[in-house]
């Protein structure tokens, strides 16, 4: 990147300059409508028709000035003195995905500029929870909750806005990823070290990514081949309960700079039998996972870019009674066993083409395909499921007159083939969904921006759906941001896989009607204020969201202790969520984050509006991090407090198998120390320091084939304190 700096003392009070871009032939061209603003502030402007800009001097120098424009690589310029004149040359880029300007100074930051309220969780933040996969990484983040599912499978689920993770759309670099059979537990299949950063959007997402986001959107950015400075990365992890993990990344350098590749490999094994609560059941299942991902980048260094990759996963989990033998006791009632075997194969291709000398104009096409197979048994109940998926998304991006007005037009096609078998019943369906969308973005860097989108999709089984969505941002002052969002989303559910934990019980599955797609509206409001405290940056964040279901697939555990009933919503179902976040640095290199969350999630169960089970009304999170010079030592400490939540009614059980109406409140404490050496770093940590576990998580554990058995009524950890150590190493 070429950058020229001139010091000039004759002009007063202003930083001024000119922004030009180079096209694919290296020809320079004036850039009107480029965004110019000070890092971490909302003070900014856009360039005029001649590419010129003027900005008030910063409060202090040196200050970081960010220059960005769609279709070009953003640049950060260090302004060392007031009244400087700055000429900036931006290099063009083919934009495959939405270009996100970001500065990696804080580990978590809410961007003040984007109209969509997005929180970035950097790779650094992910290291705070060293173990292991993405579903566990959210324990230091307030917007995404991690929930426990049942007492036997060991799988964890996420929740946003008090709603199950299935209502959150998970994207892999802006392509829908964890859908269908992997919607509920898919985050367990992504090792934390593979991730560069995670973008979390609360509330409705962009229409460009499809119709499925209802309560939120999580976009996972994997490590990029060409950005790896080191050739090899190794990560090892082990805990005192016998779980071991290894990750290996390999990024060879090519002579031909057009190409880049990155290979990820992961193996994990939880091979020791633990039964701390002496109920005869394993606290955590025996697991083994092999996971592989190879991605390639190609850039012709002019106007064409392509990315493609292939992913493979094979995982087995075996839980249940400690003396269950998988090889010959499946489908017998000798001992109660649980097995979940998953195999996934995925491939994707993204291509981006940019018009010569019109960097704001581009065409992007995304293709992906997936095959997933899931084979499960819970005692005598068997499930087999298979999903074949194809997805194509075509995006055309352009501007109207100048880059203050941008739009995207596109079309997508989704194909899903499901073939499921539960006990004796077979369920087959093929979904074909062609759709079109349009999204308009108005950007006025000073203080206002807006994204308005709409899409129409024709579902072969459920007909036409329209999905309107709107996001707005307004900066009241340079440090105060207000945001509004609203939109609709829909999804089809896969009840067996999404509610698999319920099968670890004696409950009979009842489904008396055809399940319709789930449709919901989501509205949100947020305010962000930045200020100085103890001479350091601090922030306070407030948000409120309402999700209103038009239809929902109800999982009714209250009707009877002997049944789980699935049916379409008949009445009201909504979620209210309120969150207050506060972050500050009391002393240099000490960062404190606090969050309070209030959830009011109500659903009509059998004509009665009741709180959704296992969702605590109040939650508190506290995170404190301290690092020494150059991060040679890092200390991290996280506390979560969970208020009481409703437990589905058990009054019909015999007295000894009844549970209280509400769960107990509890604390979870995690702590971690990292020591960096010249060539490697090691970490030592402890999860669940207080060793808190749910007492008797399994009802009638002695008779797993009896009518009172239930291992699905879980609101707290089953596994107690875990001490772990690990190592990270780069090799050049």
């Amino acid at each position, binding site marked *: 990147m070429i950058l020229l700096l001139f010091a000039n003392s004759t002009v007063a009070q202003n930083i001024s300059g000119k922004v030009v871009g180079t096209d694919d032939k290296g020809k320079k061209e004036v850039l009107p409508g480029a965004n110019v603003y000070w890092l971490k502030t909302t003070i900014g402007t856009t360039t005029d028709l001649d590419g010129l800009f003027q900005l008030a001097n910063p409060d202090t120098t040196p200050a970081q000035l960010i220059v960005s424009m769609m279709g070009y690589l953003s640049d*950060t310029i260090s302004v060392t003195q007031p009244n400087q004149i700055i000429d900036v040359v931006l290099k063009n880029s083919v934009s495959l995905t939405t270009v996100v300007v970001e500065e990696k100074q804080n580990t978590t930051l809410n961007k003040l500029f984007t109209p969509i309220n997005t929180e970035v969780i950097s790779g650094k933040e992910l290291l705070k929870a060293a173990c292991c996969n993405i579903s566990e990484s959210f324990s230091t983040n307030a917007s995404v909750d991690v929930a426990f599912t049942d007492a036997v499978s060991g799988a964890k689920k996420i929740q946003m806005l008090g709603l199950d993770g299935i209502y959150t759309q998970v994207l892999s670099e802006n392509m829908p990823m964890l859908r269908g059979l992997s919607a509920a537990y898919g985050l367990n299949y992504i090792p934390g070290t593979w991730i560069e950063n995670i973008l979390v959007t609360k509330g409705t997402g962009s229409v460009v990514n499809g119709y499925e986001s209802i309560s939120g959107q999580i976009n996972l950015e994997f490590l990029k081949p060409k950005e790896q400075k080191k050739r090899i990365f190794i990560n090892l992890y082990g805990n005192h309960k016998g779980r071991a993990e290894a990750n290996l990344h390999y990024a060879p350098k090519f002579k031909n700079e057009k190409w880049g590749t990155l290979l990820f490999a992961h193996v994990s094994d939880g091979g020791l039998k633990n039964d701390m609560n002496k109920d005869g059941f394993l606290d955590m299942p025996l697991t083994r996972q092999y996971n592989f991902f190879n991605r390639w980048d190609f850039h012709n260094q002019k106007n064409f870019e392509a990315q493609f990759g292939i992913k493979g996963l094979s995982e087995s989990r075996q839980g249940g009674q400690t003396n269950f033998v998988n090889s010959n006791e499946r489908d017998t009632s000798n001992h109660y066993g649980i097995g979940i075997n998953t195999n996934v194969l995925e491939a994707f291709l993204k291509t981006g083409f940019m018009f010569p000398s019109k960097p704001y104009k581009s065409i992007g096409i995304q293709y992906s395909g997936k095959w997933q197979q899931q084979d499960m048994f819970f005692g005598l109940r068997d499930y087999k499921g298979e999903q074949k998926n194809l997805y194509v998304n075509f995006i055309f991006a352009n501007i109207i007159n100048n880059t203050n007005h941008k739009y995207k037009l596109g079309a997508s096609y989704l194909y899903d083939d499901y073939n499921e078998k539960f006990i004796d019943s077979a369920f087959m369906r093929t979904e074909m969904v062609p759709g079109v969308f349009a999204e308009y973005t108005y950007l006025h860097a000073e203080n206002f921006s807006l994204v308005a989108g709409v899409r129409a999709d024709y579902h072969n089984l459920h007909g036409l759906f329209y999905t309107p969505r709107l996001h707005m941002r307004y900066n009241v002052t340079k440090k105060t941001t207000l945001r509004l969002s609203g939109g609709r989303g829909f999804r089809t559910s896969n009840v067996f896989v999404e509610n698999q934990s319920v099968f670890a019980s004696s409950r009979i599955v009842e489904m008396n009607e055809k399940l319709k797609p789930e449709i919901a509206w989501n509205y949100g409001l947020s305010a962000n204020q930045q200020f100085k405290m103890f001479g350091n940056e601090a922030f306070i964040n407030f948000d409120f969201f309402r999700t209103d279901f038009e239809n929902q697939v109800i999982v009714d555990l209250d009707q009877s202790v002997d049944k789980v009933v699935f049916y379409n919503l008949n009445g009201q179902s909504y979620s209210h969520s309120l969150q207050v976040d506060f972050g500050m640095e009391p002393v240099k290199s000490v960062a404190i984050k606090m969050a309070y969350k209030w959830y009011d999630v109500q659903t009509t169960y059998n004509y009665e509006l009741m709180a959704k089970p296992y969702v605590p009304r109040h939650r508190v999170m506290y995170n404190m991090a301290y690092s020494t010079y150059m991060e040679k030592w890092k200390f991290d400490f996280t506390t979560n407090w969970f208020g009481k939540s409703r437990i589905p009614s058990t009054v019909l059980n015999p007295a000894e198998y009844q549970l209280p109406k509400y769960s107990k409140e509890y*604390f979870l404490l995690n702590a971690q120390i990292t020591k960096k050496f010249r060539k490697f770093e090691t970490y030592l940590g402890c999860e669940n320091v207080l060793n808190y576990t749910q007492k008797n998580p399994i009802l009638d554990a002695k008779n797993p084939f009896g009518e009172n058995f239930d291992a699905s009524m879980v609101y707290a950890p089953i596994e107690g304190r875990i001490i772990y150590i690990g190592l990270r190493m780069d090799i050049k």
Partner: protein
Amino acid sequence: MKKLKTILLSSIMMLVMSVNLAKAQDATTAELKVKTSAVCDMCKETMEKHMAFEKGVKKSSLDVESKILTVTYNPTKITPEQIRKAVSKSGYDADEVKADPKAYKKLDACCKKGAVCNDKK
């Protein structure tokens, strides 16, 4: 409530500890200025990171403009001579000590002597 107390206490302890650690640099502190052959911000990063893991070095800061590296160190643990040697090991000249040829070879092209820096951040 007992648990809440434990949590509060431990977080206060951590805060006090970190404040103390931050202030723990007094008596055994000396400063040394070394003229180096660094060219850009990228060199600054490489060099400061390299120096941080040198025993006895508490802090180091390179002024890219003047190419002077200011090292805060504990003289009972490291000598100025050893500091210059450490800079040389990171691939740069340190006063009269020439850059270690092996380390110099490993530097990025833009960090080599006489390179015009593109100044990426």
